[in-house]
């Protein structure tokens, strides 16, 4: 070997480098068990409250299917991402009326609910949403629902803000946190300014909504990308008002925050019905059922409720919660009344999506 001749040739160093590189690559997975060859990765485009890390680990262990989540903060962005990425994603968590749009655009495909044994755990109502029916198939697996309302910290907010106009008060400058979902924020603005169909506003209504938003802007602390950021802002009191899902008061308390109360705006509000759908171009469609079946089992859903506070569609999980002593909390948060979900103005794509997003961007800058 030429090293002994006192000269490291390029060949030797290349060998050294190659060995080192190979070593590093193999060492990577060797923190514990080496990566199993049978493990398939199910890539999910989803919200942060659709899963827990330990849940994914348990599902991976049981089924060999490893979930790999990528978070999105706006349905419109998720839709575009699926459109652009083809077979990158296997599962997408679509909201309410976005589900039919995905199907119509050929991005997701419906399936037979009865192929999923876990679907029997759902409230029967959830298996029969008319807007998700596709012949005898179903477009998505129902997960959770909630209205979007106002939560406030009574320590700082002395009068209950039970209308969208009330939160424009200059007292709340820089104290409001809400999710960064342009389409939905515009819909709320539409509600605030009297639009009957917040997702199908005319240009005039969009203008009025934009004006309301402009007045709201100085009061906004942060546009959160996931709802747990709103929870945190309320918990550490950087925000006094949060516009977010049911159960936030419990979540803030769990995060060792102050007592916050709910206020339902009298102009009405919007709500979402969350789900999981099959991405049409996914390469793992054959195991999608197995994965979702494991993911959506009642014990996990029950835990999800405790962590995230808003109602879900798994009826068996509700019974588990009652047995665990959380019945009162579940009922307070309307878990046992899934029919109320249908009374909401359900989130979906806007008639003129571009105009909504433009209006929002033009107010918030980004």
């Amino acid at each position, binding site marked *: 070997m030429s090293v002994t001749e006192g000269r490291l040739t390029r060949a030797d160093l290349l060998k050294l480098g190659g060995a080192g590189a190979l070593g590093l690559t193999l060492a990577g997975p060797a923190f514990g068990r080496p990566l199993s060859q049978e493990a398939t990765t199910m890539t999910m485009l989803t919200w942060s409250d659709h899963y827990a890390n330990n849940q994914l680990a348990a599902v991976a262990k049981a089924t060999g299917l490893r979930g790999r989540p990528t978070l999105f903060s706006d349905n419109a*962005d998720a839709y575009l991402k699926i459109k652009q990425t083809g077979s990158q994603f296997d599962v997408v968590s679509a909201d309410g009326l976005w589900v039919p749009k995905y199907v119509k655009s050929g991005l997701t495909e419906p399936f037979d609910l009865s192929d999923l044994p876990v679907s029997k755990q759902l409230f029967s109502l959830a298996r029969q949403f008319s807007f998700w029916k596709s012949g005898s198939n179903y477009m998505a697996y129902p997960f959770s629902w909630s209205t979007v309302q106002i939560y406030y910290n009574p320590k700082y907010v002395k009068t209950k803000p039970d209308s969208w106009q009330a939160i424009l008060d200059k007292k709340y400058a820089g104290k409001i946190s809400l999710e960064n979902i342009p389409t939905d924020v515009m819909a709320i603005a539409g509600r605030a300014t009297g639009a009957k169909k917040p997702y199908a506003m005319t240009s005039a209504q969009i203008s009025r909504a934009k004006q309301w938003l402009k007045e709201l802007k100085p009061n906004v602390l942060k546009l959160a990308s996931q709802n747990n950021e709103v929870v945190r802002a309320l918990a550490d009191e950087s925000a006094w008002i949060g516009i977010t899902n049911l159960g936030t008061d419990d979540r803030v308390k769990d995060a060792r925050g102050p007592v916050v109360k709910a206020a339902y705006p009298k102009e009405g509000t919007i709500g979402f019905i969350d789900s999981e759908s099959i991405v049409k171009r996914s390469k793992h469609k054959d195991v999608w059922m197995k994965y979702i079946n494991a993911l959506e089992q009642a014990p996990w859903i029950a835990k999800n409720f405790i962590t995230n506070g808003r109602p879900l569609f798994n009826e068996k999980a509700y019974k588990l919660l009652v047995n665990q002593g959380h019945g009162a909390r579940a009922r307070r948060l309307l878990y046992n009344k899934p029919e109320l979900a249908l009374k909401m103005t359900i989130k979906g794509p806007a008639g003129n999506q571009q105009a909504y997003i433009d209006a929002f961007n033009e107010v918030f800058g980004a």
Partner: protein
Amino acid sequence: MEQQVATPPHALPPADVSAGRRGSRLSGLTQYAGFIPALLLYGLFFLAPFGLIVAYSFWQTIDYEVVHKWTVDNYRYFFSVPTYVRTMWATLWVSFAATAITLLMAFPLAYWLVRYVRKSLQGFFLVLVVVPFWTSYLLRVYAWLNILGEGGAINRFLQWTGVTEHPVSFFLYDRPAVILVLVYLYFPFAALTLYASLQKFDWNQYKAALDLGAPPRIALLRIVLPQMKAGMVTAVIFVFIPILGEYLTPQLVGGAKGVMIGNLVVNFFSGAQYTRGAAVSLLIAGLIVFLLLIVRKSLEVEDPYRA
């Protein structure tokens, strides 16, 4: 330099004597052969995308599809929205403030290093400045999230010592937080360039000025600073220009009020408004190239690669 030229163990092909006489130079076009891989990489994946951005910025997006119709509408639209223009000015202002603060903080440190630290230790302290920089950008911003914020270290500390009653929200989700974190991120650039420049300075001139009766402060102002100009310009460039394109810091610590133009670009691109996003990107890139051109004279060092 004493070197042994080892004899290769195998027989050599006939020597290319003519090339040998010219030493290490190749002839004609073959001397540029090494550029080929780089040209491929950068031609395809740097220049071409840039050209695409230029083109896109003058095309239209209709119904999420890019249509090849030439228009300046994207630029017109950008300048017609007051929020966007305000964001642009805010970005310039934040960059300016962060650069100024960074330089003001870095200069005394560089001066201290050159003036008061033993030569043998200077390298060590310099490395110490750079060490935090050699960790992931994301991690450094993340580290500040631990400290700022109502549940963060500063507020908890203030509450624990009884200085404040409840959390102060000044520290997070606003422009000051963005500036603070940016200063932290770019400080090593400024410190290193200022140090390099200060070190080259001939302190005998300073001494002479003092001997001639000038007070130290005047000597500093009149003798030292003017000769530092090149170094300061370099430092400004290495701090100001990258900050213009910042996205992550304003996103994580900026909140609704700390938005910078990078966030706008990302917003357009995630919403598939490629043509608008391209126009804004080109504005940023154009500004950067423009600034670089203005100061290229100060950047001109005697060509180190001239053989």
